[in-house]
């Protein structure tokens, strides 16, 4: 019981630290590395939520495939540094006044969200219902109830693939 809460805090700390590091880094390579750590923490959280398949897919698809794609692009473009000179502090949105208003609005939004969420009540996740986590059940539901969405997904993948080749391919070939 207590150890589970401890694990939650550990994984949550990893996830949030990774996420903060993503937007705090100037170097995109470090950002990609930080987001890999963040996704590993998320994967631990999925294990805690008794969704082991999602946890494995998170590591394989996200950390293994999508972020490698990001890393390839960063290195292909040789964009290992954000151009410091391009930080335009005179832009209207970056003046102190609007920045403060934006900050107050963001804190307000987060406060409202937390307030609303704490109204839900303190029942533990899974105290009410048994876990539905078997891969067999997952596959059955995916290939019956969600059959149409699954097929549409394949069209999306084809469209994405063709789009990527057309956009990134060399002109004039």
């Amino acid at each position, binding site marked *: 019981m207590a150890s589970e809460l401890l694990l939650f805090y550990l994984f949550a700390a990893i996830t949030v630290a990774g996420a903060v590091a*993503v937007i705090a880094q100037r170097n995109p390579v470090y950002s990609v590395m930080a987001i890999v750590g963040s996704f590993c923490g998320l994967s631990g*959280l*999925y294990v805690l939520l008794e969704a082991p398949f999602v946890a494995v897919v998170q590591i394989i698809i996200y950390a293994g495939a999508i972020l490698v794609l990001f890393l390839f692009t960063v290195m292909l473009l040789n964009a290992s540094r954000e151009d410091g000179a391009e930080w335009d502090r005179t832009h209207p949105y970056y003046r102190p006044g609007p920045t403060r208003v934006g900050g107050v609005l963001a804190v307000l939004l987060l406060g409202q969200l937390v307030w609303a969420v704490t109204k839900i009540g303190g029942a533990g*996740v899974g105290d009410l219902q048994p876990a539905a986590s078997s891969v067999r059940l997952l596959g059955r539901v995916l290939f019956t109830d*969600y059959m149409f969405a699954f097929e549409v997904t394949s069209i999306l993948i084809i469209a994405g693939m063709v789009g990527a080749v057309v956009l990134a391919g060399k002109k004039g070939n």
Partner: protein
Amino acid sequence: MVPITYYLVLSGILFAIGTAGVFLRKNVITLLLSVELMLNAVNLSFVAFGRQFGTVDGQIITFFVMTVAAAEAAVGLAIVIALFRHRESLSPEAFTNLKW
């Protein structure tokens, strides 16, 4: 068990960090990474709700979100490469013209 509130608050924090990244960073690749962060925050709340209700629907929607994220990353990065070829820059402020 950990209350679902904790997961939802964590999801909100992650989403807020992703949003902050979109507004603060001046690098198109980091912007795309921040969008991935936001998608993952939503995934976390989907899985938490699915666990709460004892169904697999939350996990299945998570798969679809991951597929969309993969397609988005592929097309987005292809666009970044195409833009970089024209402008030799990754700053969003370099891409303010609709046509050049």
